């Protein structure tokens, strides 16, 4: 009987784990909610991956690839899935979590207007054929994703009216200097800088409001400037999708899954890789994914050869977190009548009198809608320091039909 290795998430980390696990005779299943492998970074398929990583897409035929499938929960040996064919259970001997991350959105006046989208969100929609040529775009928030997406959209003909980064210039320069010794990242930074040579780039600056009739038409910055636009893309960093790890009882620290050098979590036979263990982008994801795939299939020798790269990737991840820490002024953006929970339209004023996340849920329905706190949870953690106290089955909103198993 061959070993059942199940990998959740077909982004860079999950694909890398599948590739290294497939060097053994294990029985591998790769699960993803999207229609196409690649995750967010390589959304749209292998054409979007750097050449050195394209081989990771190659083995899709030799493993069980389950697309458009949501993992609703997990127990010690089973996953509970919502698939296009209905609910299913899947047994695992080794489980590799590669759930990736979502964007952190902070509420400000006008952020619920149509065409105010995430930075990665706009990138995803454009890869999904949203026409962007000739459109005026403001990109705001924090993190390297801002310039990466700005340069990509510009290449597709978008008019980038401004890139607005909340970090002070000294901090940004320190981050730049920390890339010395990391040639891939240096080259990437240089390419972005060149692509955005004539694009207004504001540091130490942030959005204070979005305005418009029916959709966003202009944005206001804290320096008093107003900029007209067709799209406002904003996000303030990334939050790891730790729900499944939490349900399995994996130990978390500061919202990331704790792993050892083998990518092993605190739970037996459960590994976590990529953004789940700390935001670090595709290189960290691929290295950690490969290590977990090797270790899960007993190939310790191959895994140990990646230790140095793993250490470098983790160091970059820590620099990233320190360099793009959010400033306290961003807590003042939301006004009393600003919606914080978009699913249930709960305003800041309604939440200010609540002592905790649980109380807010019970009293105001904050976090009780379709996103199940995936958006407002990050915002209220930043605004009020609230944390979620439990993650229950099912971890995604599903229809009753997705829960009802036919009995045999």
């Amino acid at each position, binding site marked *: 009987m061959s070993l059942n290795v199940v990998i959740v998430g077909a982004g860079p980390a999950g694909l890398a784990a599948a590739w290294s696990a497939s060097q053994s005779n294990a029985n591998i299943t790769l699960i993803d*909610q*999207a*229609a196409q492998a690649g995750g*967010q970074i390589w959304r749209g398929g292998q054409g979007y991956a750097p050449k050195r990583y394209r081989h990771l897409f190659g083995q899709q035929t030799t493993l069980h690839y389950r697309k*458009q499938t949501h993992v609703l929960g997990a127990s010690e040996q089973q996953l509970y899935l919502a698939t296009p064919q209905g609910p299913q259970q899947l047994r695992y001997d080794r489980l590799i979590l590669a759930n990736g991350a*979502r*964007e952190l*959105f902070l509420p400000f006046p006008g952020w*619920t207007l*149509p*065409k*105010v*989208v*995430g930075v*990665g*969100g*706009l*990138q*995803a*929609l*454009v*890869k*999904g*054929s*949203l*026409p962007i040529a000739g459109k005026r775009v403001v990109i705001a928030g924090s993190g390297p994703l801002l310039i990466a997406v700005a340069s990509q959209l510009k290449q597709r003909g978008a008019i980038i009216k401004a890139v607005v980064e909340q970090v002070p210039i000294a901090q940004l320069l320190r981050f730049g200097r920390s890339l010395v010794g990391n040639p891939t990242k240096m080259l990437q930074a240089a390419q972005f800088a060149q692509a955005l040579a004539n694009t207004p780039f504001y540091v130490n600056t942030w959005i204070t409001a979005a305005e418009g009739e*029916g*959709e966003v038409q202009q944005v206001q910055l804290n320096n008093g400037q107003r900029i007209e636009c067709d799209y406002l893309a904003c996000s303030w960093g990334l939050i790891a*999708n730790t729900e499944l790890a939490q349900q399995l009882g994996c130990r978390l620290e500061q919202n990331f899954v704790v792993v050892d050098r083998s990518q092993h979590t605190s739970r037996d036979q459960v590994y976590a890789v990529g953004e789940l263990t700390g935001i670090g982008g595709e290189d960290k994801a691929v290295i950690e994914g490969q290590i977990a795939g090797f270790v899960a299939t007993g190939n310790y020798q191959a895994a140990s050869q990646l230790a140095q790269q793993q250490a470098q990737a983790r160091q970059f991840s820590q620099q990233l977190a320190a360099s793009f820490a959010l400033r306290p002024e961003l807590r003042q953006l939301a006004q009393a009548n600003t*919606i914080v929970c*978009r*699913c*249930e*339209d709960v305003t800041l004023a309604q939440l200010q009198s609540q002592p905790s996340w649980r109380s807010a849920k019970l009293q105001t329905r904050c976090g009780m*809608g*379709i*996103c199940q706190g*995936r*958006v407002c949870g990050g915002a209220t953690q930043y605004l009020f320091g609230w944390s979620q106290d439990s993650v229950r089955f099912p971890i995604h*909103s599903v*229809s009753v039909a997705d829960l009802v198993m036919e009995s045999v």
Partner: protein
Amino acid sequence: MKQIRISINGTEYQVTEHSNLAAVLMDKAIANRRSVTGEPRMAVCGMGSCGECRVTINQQAHQLACLLQCCDGMEVDCEP
């Protein structure tokens, strides 16, 4: 690229096959849903987390448009 026809709120549109449904609705400035207080909403996260892009497809409610590709004959209904 192959063009296909889909219907949105009863009107027929010609779109490129496999384009992302949330992207199509945003480009045509058609709100996906109404919030509980009546605000029009469109996709935000683009990756299946926020749920703002949910629509009814072929009479099946609460489908996330950002995770779906357009296919011929698709009937999309947004909350009025």
